[in-house]
Structure formats: C-alpha cells, structure tokens
C-alpha cells in the first residue's frame, strides 16, 4: 500500500482518474509526467451505462492505493484519508460536531431555530469544494436531514419531523399537473411586498369561519371587468358600517307580481293621504 497526494483531477478521458504524487516514489517527478490513476469506487456504485457516482477527490487529497504492475507505473487509488493538512483539519467541521458554521446567518422573523446538535461520530456529511452540503445526522434525539446550497439556500428536517426551508433569493415552482397542499393545522403567510394570485379558472374559497380582509393603507376592490354582463354578488345580508356610496343606479329586486322593482335614484312613494298623488323623487 502506498500513499500520495492528488495533484490533478482534470482527466482528459473524464473517467474520474487523478494524478497522484506518491510519497518517495514520485518526489522528483513533475506533475505533467505523472500517470493517470484509476480510482476504485465503492460497491454501491454500478459504474456502468452512465450510472453511479462521481469521483470527488480534490487536488491535495491524501489517498492510498496499490500499483497494478511490477514496474510501478499504474497506480490505483483505493481511498482517501481525512487527516490534517498543513495544520488544518481535513475532516468536515460538521462531522467533527463543532459549532454550526452557518449559525450567524440572517434568519426570518418567524424562522424556527435550527436543530443542529450533532455528536461525533453520528453526523454523516458530504460537502463539496464550493460549499454545497448534505447532512444525514444520526445523533440520538437530534436526527436531522439538511441539504444546503453554498449560497445559503437550504432545507432542514429536524428530529420531530418539522421542516424549515430557507431560500436566500427567488423561488419558483412549476407544477405541470395538479397540486394539493393539505394542512391539518394553521397556515401563516407573511408577505413583505405585494402578493398576486392569478387564477385562469374559478377560484373557490370555502371557509368554515369568518373571512377578514383588512387593508391598512389602501382600498379593497372587488370588480369584474365585464360590468355589463357580470356582477359582484354579495350573497348574504350586507352590513355597511360606514357610508355607502353608489356611483351608478341602485335598483332593488322585484318583491311580488304587484310590487315592481324600484330604482332608488328616482323612485316616488304614494301620498298617504291621497293615494292618487305621488311624492317627489329623492334629492
């Protein structure tokens, strides 16, 4: 078994091969002269027909392996060794169960606190060169799954099953088919900017209790763009606590065959003392 340092990962054949400078054997060999070494992958990688995993060795990785030939020309990497390179721990900070490296990041006003509380050696972490992270933390009573983009966008599932999703930029979701959100408890949506809901078909809102629509600084408008054929229907008694201003004609419905519809703007009443005389129209 020999040990060496990965010097190049830019395999021209894109087979995941790396150039390894093996201690003692390649001390005087330039990187450009080093052979390309194949990397033995774990058995859960089929490594055929485009399936399997990528080789994630990086320049500087300490690796171990064997030579496939007696002349020691073809080296095969059998694994990497996380140790300490130039005084810096190679093993991931989350694996070592040190303080959450992202604890100081900005959080939302209602964002639950992270369930990050790993204990070595339970946290299974994969972190890439740029800083993407996957965690499968098996720490007893603090089991978590966390997946994070280097920008800070991430989701976390904590021990009790609660999930927190944090997106540091825009979010977009496309559902080509149908979408269903079923919530047993309450739903709270906080929008700091504007909110637009566009529905091409009907929009039905079935509410078991009250519906409150409050605008603190603006108007509330219910309208249909086809004012000739379509209506805004208030299908219940209407309580107007403020003034009621009608810009157009106000007409009541016909109440019987003998009582026709009334136009509020110009309607008259019978004179009580003289039925044949009508009162004047409203001012």
């Amino acid at each position: 078994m020999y040990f060496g340092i990965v010097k190049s990962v830019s395999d021209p054949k894109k087979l995941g091969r790396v150039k390894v400078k093996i201690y003692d054997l390649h001390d005087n060999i330039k990187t450009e002269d080093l052979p390309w070494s194949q990397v033995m992958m774990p058995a859960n990688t089929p490594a055929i027909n485009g399936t399997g995993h990528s080789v994630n060795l990086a320049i500087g990785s300490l690796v171990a392996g064997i030579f496939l030939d007696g002349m020691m020309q073809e080296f095969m990497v059998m694994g990497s060794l996380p140790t300490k390179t130039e005084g810096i721990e190679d093993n991931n900070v989350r694996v070592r169960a040190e303080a959450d490296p992202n604890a100081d990041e900005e959080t939302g006003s209602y964002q639950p606190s992270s369930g990050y509380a790993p204990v070595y050696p339970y946290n299974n972490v994969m972190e890439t060169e740029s800083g993407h992270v996957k965690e499968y933390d098996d720490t007893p009573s603090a089991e978590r799954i966390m997946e994070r983009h280097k920008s800070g966008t991430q989701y976390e599932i904590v021990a009790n099953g609660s999930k927190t999703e944090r997106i540091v930029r825009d979010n977009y979701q496309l559902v080509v088919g149908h979408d269903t959100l079923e919530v047993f408890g309450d739903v709270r949506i906080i929008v700091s900017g504007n909110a637009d809901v566009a529905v091409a078909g009907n929009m039905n809102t079935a509410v078991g209790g009250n519906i409150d629509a409050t605008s603190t600084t603006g108007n509330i408008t219910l309208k249909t763009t086809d004012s000739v054929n379509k209506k805004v229907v208030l299908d219940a008694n209407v309580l107007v606590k403020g003034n009621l201003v009608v810009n157009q004609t106000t007409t009541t419905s016909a109440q019987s065959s003998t009582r026709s519809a009334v136009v509020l703007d110009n309607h008259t009443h019978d004179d009580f003392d003289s039925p044949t005389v009508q009162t004047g129209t409203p001012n």
Partner: protein
Amino acid sequence: MINLQNLKVTVQNADIAPMVLSLTMFETIKGNIRGSMTVLDNMNFMDTFIATSHAPIEIHWQYESYQFTYNFYGDGISDMQINKLGKQYTIHFLAYTTMNAQVKRINNAFSGRSDQIIYDIFTEINDNRELGRLMIDTRSITKGKYIVPNIKGQEALNNVVNSSWDNNKSPLLLYQRLADEGDTRLTSLSDMNDTEFGLYEQNGTIVYKNTFTLKATVAGADEESDGLEARTQIGTVSKFVMDEFNTNFTHKIASGYYGQKVQNISLDETSSNDFPPAELTNIPATYYKLQNNLFDGDTKSVFSTLCEPDSYLAYNQKRRVFNHRMTAMDTVAVPGLSVGYSIETDSGGSNMSNSKTDTKYIIASIQHRFTMQDGEFQYAQDIGLIRDGTE
C-alpha cells in the same frame, strides 16, 4: 597452460601483485564483471585496505600480445586465516558500474526508445564517463515513457532491458566484457549470435580469421600425442560438460517457455483481447494490461506491450537460450575472448562422443582464473556456452 605476464594489482596506489596467490574474474551476459583474489598478507596491508569501504583496485596483465587494464572497486574481505606471520584472505571486487547501480537510486521520468532510456538511466547512474561508458550495439524497437519510482539504478535498468527487444523480436542484454576494459554493452541475442569471435593478434600477427572453435584435448588420439602438447594451444578445452539440455522440459512447457495463448484484460476500457499462440504451444495465460493512455496525450508506457505476444516471443527466447548449456572447463585462455560472441565447439573430435552438440554457441559466461604455479600465473578459462535446445 600459457602463463600470464606483467600482472599488477594496484589497491589504493599500492601494487600487491606479489601478495596474490590466485585471482578470478567472472563475466556474464546477464550483468557486470566481478571477481575475487586470494592474497597472502605478511605486511598487514588489510588494515590499510579496509580504510575505505570501496577501495579502488586496478588490475593489469598481459597475455600473449594482449594487454588489459581493468578498474574495480573493493567489496569486502572474507575467509581470512590469521597466524603469527600474517594473514591469508580473499578480497572481493566489483565493477564501478555495479557499485553505482546498486547504491544510486533513480527518481526521474524518461522517454524514447528503450535503448535511449537505458542509456539515459545508465548515464545518470555513472557520472564518471571514463569508468562507466555504455556501448549500444542494438537499437530497440520498443519505446515509451518510464517513470522510475526511486528504485535502485540496477533495478531500473533491468526493468527496461527485460521489456525491450529489437526488430528481430530478440531480447536485449546489458552486460560487460572483460575485453572492453570497463565498457558496458547493450546487445540483442540475435546480434550476439551473429558476432562470431575469430580474430585476435599475436605478436602483431592475426592468428585467426574464421569462427573460433574450442577443441577438446585429444589425449592419446594418436600414438605421437599424449595430449600434453595440446595444453599449450590456445582454446584447448580440458573437458566439456553439458550442464543442461532441456532440463525440466515438461515444467518449461507448462510455464509457457514455448508459447502462450495470451488473454489481455484492459482495465481502463474493460475489454478483453485474446491473442492466438505465437509459438509452439498454447498454454493459456491472462494478464492485466497497462492503460493505453496512462499519460497525457498519446504517450504510452515503455511497458505497455509487456503482456503482448511479441514481448513473450522475446522473453521466451531469453529463457530458452539457456536450455542448452555447456561449459568448456579449464580452457587454455583465449586472449580477447569475451561474453556476447559466438564460437563453435569440437567436443568429441573423431571420437564417438562427437554429436550434434558440436555447433555454434553464444558465450554466456567466462570465469577467468589466474593461478600461481611455480612462481608464474597460469591463465585458464571456464567458458559457459548457451543455445536454444530446440534448434
């Protein structure tokens, strides 16, 4: 036997020839010259000799019209007998290039034809061009790149030599001849076979021009000869000994000496190549081939063809040539005769023992023996001869 003349053995600038009882040098096509000498030391020279670990030793002698000077380095003392008057012991010595090849390590990248790589490695090992020169008799057709992984120079040289062959698919050998006085040679077996020894001078006169023949002493072959006279004739062999003729033949067949049906597994492309037998037998053999693109670009490893049939043709030739080994014992020394030449034998003369073993051989080794006899050094050679037992 013919006596040696003007033997000088200089160890650290002191001529110890008067102390020498016997001296032996061994040359072989498999490597460098080495030797030993037994000395009677009545002046406590040993204490001086061992002052340095590798004392320079220069041996000079004259035999017939030939003069030789050879530089060695001391490699220790053994078998010392000590009494009140002095010591008798054996001094071992080896070639300058052997010493360097064993001690110096190579950690470098080389590219080109195999013979060029051998030259470059050899030059890196031996920084004294006077004491370490390489003569290339045969160019290889094998080529590529070799990353020498900080191993002994000798090991690096062997790796390339053993994976090289010429355009006759004949293997290369790296060796020293005593006649070359320190030079190392790179020659293929086929070129050795074609290099017939037959020319040397005696008192300024060319004695032999044709292929030299080693002849057995024919004691009593005729009424006038008792065989003693022949012992003063150059190249007269006291006894021919057939050391091997296809010994362990079955084992050799099974081991693929006479051909293999090679299956090459390429790990970088997960492919299998089946090669038909290139020789007599089809003993199956599976090998894992080096990656074709082990390095950047189209550069291949100098060992990339090591598992292919052409390589085994050469490799087997090198193994088979030792199937027929014979030793010409206690030969009246032939001046200028060295390993890597081909000669012929006349082992039985007109007797019944004459057989097909009398033919052309390559000289694989020579033990040169200088033995003190009646105040003079007699020079005898034990000559190792080889050829393919199937020929």
